[in-house]
């Protein structure tokens, strides 16, 4: 027989003034199974908790109901008290007599009656509670970081510096990401490569970081603490261990006119190449689509000049399996190309370029060695028009959001241009100036006031070529909405930031969610900004939403600290409020019939398939199994299961049913 103890709290006057606590305790004492019922001024106080502990010991209680405030307030307090007295914490329940009763009703007999009902319901529930124990899941203390831009670099270094192994996977031949392409960074105008490359080197030399460049995630399985990732190491065509990075092959490569991705197609590269001189690792890859040998079967000039004989033309992609406990997704962004804008020439005009291309023009390591020269004829442009919000905040273009960094980098571009071409005339067309950030507004003011950049508030409707000039037709909405026409030599579009083209495929591969714009969805927009909904997967940088470098780095460190926190324990301890699929004696094994309709209802993909086999290994039955490391305990599967084969610990069918019957 159950031996339930009921403890009614007055909460000073909070409950006592409206509810007759003594009457509630008395009524509770008469309920079947209740062997102890008292009321007390403050149950949560030390003396109050001691009342519970003593009763548990003396009356050998098998369950406790505390009628007090909301369980959302003090359930942990009373459960801890019970545990200290030797009663399993999950044999303690609370009846909410304060928030749901005394505070919301008048002092009337009905209010005390309701309080008695609430206690009776919980007594019936607690009679059916079972001892539950925290679920322990072992943790593989290795992190996988996807993406070797500044977000991935920061996250990898933070985790590695905390002493945990990191596997860093980068799709391109070098880490560095977009930040390596930038000329100078706002609002300080320090050189991007100067601050980034030391970090890249640190990654390469870090004993805890295993770096896979020119590699991609092939698959990810498992759950928090226990993921299995397969990485596709694409064939570089060279043996990295042998190659010294001397660059002789690159010098001799006869195919030299391939548009350079690193230079945003403004410069050229060879077929065997490193993306840029400071690449990490400084080992070339062969671009098989352009290489003469792969296309015609003849050449191999690079092999002839290689002093270490490192060329491996028949190298194949390699699949590497790694066990990791956490994943940081930092796959970054790309910008829309000029071909996205029919009204701005549909990519036809060579001198209409993107902001990223301007970065390469302004960069000392770029195709013009930092001189601002227009792509069509190499002339120094006298008039440059910068157009902010190219695509962003434009529902007609399908992009509703603000790309966030364009206001700042457009100001920076105009400033850099003015610094390099003193007599030049920079114009900026803008919708609003969004310069929220430390020293950001000051930076924009500097562009306008010191560098005399002409800011025109209005949109540009069309760009067309006439007499060697690009005619930029827009409107100045602050000047009585007068149409404006500027004959420019170069036009720079601050094109919208969008997720990587395969962001959706990657998210599906990892079973993480993404929004309508294909940016990854964090678990909570405010309170869980670096976690994904799938436990153990974290996010950093612009793959989640447009953001600038400081924000990206902050989020990367945030994600890293979440990983480090996770790795601070050997086992993951989780609340045992999870779903379980029942098991019964053979030949049934479980009442589950394996229809797996619950599979897609689970928001966490926690439902697995378990094959029940006989001793010869023949499959007798396939039934559902809930992965307790993944299940978050919502119970959607429980309500869906027709045969009632899944139940939710802590909120079992039996418990909830008993609550209803007690009403």
């Amino acid at each position: 027989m159950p031996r339930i103890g009921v403890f009614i709290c007055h909460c000073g006057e909070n409950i006592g003034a409206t509810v007759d606590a003594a009457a509630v305790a008395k009524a509770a004492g008469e309920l079947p199974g209740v062997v102890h019922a008292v009321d007390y001024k403050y149950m949560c106080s030390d003396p109050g908790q001691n009342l519970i502990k003593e009763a548990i010991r003396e009356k050998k209680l098998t369950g406790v109901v505390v009628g007090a405030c909301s369980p959302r307030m003090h359930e942990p307090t009373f459960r801890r008290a019970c545990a200290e007295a030797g009663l399993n914490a999950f044999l303690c329940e609370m009846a909410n007599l304060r928030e749901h009763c005394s505070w919301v009703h008048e002092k009337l007999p009905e209010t005390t009656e309701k309080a008695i009902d609430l206690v009776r319901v919980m007594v019936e529930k607690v009679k059916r509670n079972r001892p539950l124990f925290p679920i322990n899941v072992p943790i593989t203390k290795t992190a996988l970081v996807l993406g070797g831009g500044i977000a991935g670099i920061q996250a990898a270094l933070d985790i590695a510096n905390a002493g945990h192994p990191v596997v860093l996977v980068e799709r391109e031949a070098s880490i560095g990401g977009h930040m390596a392409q930038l000329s100078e960074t706002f609002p300080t105008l320090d050189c991007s490569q100067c601050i980034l490359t030391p970090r890249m080197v640190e990654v390469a030399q870090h004993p805890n970081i295993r770096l896979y460049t020119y590699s991609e995630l092939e698959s990810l399985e498992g759950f928090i603490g226990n993921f299995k990732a397969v990485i596709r190491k694409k064939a570089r065509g060279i043996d990295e261990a042998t190659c010294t990075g001397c660059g002789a092959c690159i010098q001799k490569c006869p195919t030299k006119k391939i548009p350079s991705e690193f230079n945003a197609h403004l410069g050229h590269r060879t077929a065997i190449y490193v993306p840029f001189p400071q690449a990490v690792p400084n080992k070339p890859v062969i671009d098989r689509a352009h290489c003469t040998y792969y296309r015609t079967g003849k050449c191999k000039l690079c092999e002839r000049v290689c002093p270490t004989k490192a060329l491996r033309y028949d190298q194949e992609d390699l699949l590497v399996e790694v066990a990791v406990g956490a994943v940081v997704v930092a796959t970054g962004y790309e910008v829309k190309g000029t071909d996205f804008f029919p009204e701005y020439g549909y990519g036809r005009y060579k001198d209409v370029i993107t902001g990223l291309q301007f970065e390469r023009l302004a960069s000392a390591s770029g195709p013009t060695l930092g001189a601002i020269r227009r792509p069509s004829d190499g002339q120094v442009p006298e008039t440059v028009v910068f157009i902010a919000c190219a695509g962003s905040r434009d529902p007609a273009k399908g992009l509703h959001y603000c790309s966030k960094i364009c206001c700042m980098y457009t100001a920076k571009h105009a400033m850099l241009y003015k610094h390099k071409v003193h007599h030049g005339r920079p114009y900026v067309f803008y919708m609003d100036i969004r310069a929220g950030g430390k020293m950001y507004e000051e930076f924009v003011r500097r562009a306008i006031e010191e560098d005399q950049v002409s800011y025109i508030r209005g949109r540009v409707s069309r760009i067309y070529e006439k007499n060697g000039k690009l005619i930029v037709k827009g409107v100045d909405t602050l000047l009585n909405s007068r149409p404006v026409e500027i004959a420019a030599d170069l036009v720079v579009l601050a094109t919208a930031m969008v997720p990587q083209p395969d962001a959706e495929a990657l998210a599906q591969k990892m079973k993480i969610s993404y929004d309508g714009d294909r940016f990854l969805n964090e678990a909570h927009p405010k309170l869980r900004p670096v976690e994904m909904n799938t436990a153990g997967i974290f996010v950093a940088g612009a793959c989640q939403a447009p953001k600038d470098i400081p924000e990206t780095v902050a989020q990367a460190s945030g994600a890293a600290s979440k990983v480090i926190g996770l790795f601070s324990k050997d086992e993951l301890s989780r609340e045992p409020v999870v779903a379980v699929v029942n098991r019964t004696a053979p030949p049934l094994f479980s009442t589950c019939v394996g229809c797996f309709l619950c599979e897609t209802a689970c928001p966490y993909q926690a439902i697995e398939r378990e094959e029940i086999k006989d001793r010869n290994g023949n499959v007798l039955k396939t039934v559902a199994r809930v992965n307790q490391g993944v299940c978050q305990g919502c119970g959607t599967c429980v309500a869906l299961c027709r045969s009632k084969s899944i139940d939710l610990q802590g909120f079992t069918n039996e418990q909830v049913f008993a609550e209803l019957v007690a009403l």
Partner: protein
Amino acid sequence: MEFAVSAFEPKLVAFVCNWCTYAGADLTGTSRIKYAPNVRLIRLPCTGRIDFMLLLQAFGKGADGVIVSGCHPGDCHYTAGNFHARRRWTLFRRLLDFVGVDLRRVHFAWVSAAEGAKWAELVNDVKTKIQALGPYDAFPKRLDGRPQPAEVA
């Protein structure tokens, strides 16, 4: 009291999720907003956990009205439990209506953890409406002799 002709006081059962509506009802309390004491809450982790059979049980146990409430779409603590629940309710309501269950007695609402006032208004409104309808005698009731859930040994 026994001489007064007392108005019919309906019995209301509310199935609520832990993260939004239960917390919202907590806020009603913290804000000291008063509402009718007729309602009894059944706390569940998520609206996705609410089995339609529980609603039938509530009516069978004499509830005159039922409230089902959880997080607004998009706010589910478990991301999608309420979306699944919503589909189930849509079908369940259609069936209830077809077999002659009075839908005026089944109320669905999204009440967030910040909507303490909405919770009070909801309970009061449902109470007034059910009061006007009177006791739900047309719904068959649980027989006394029916076996109770097994007691814990």
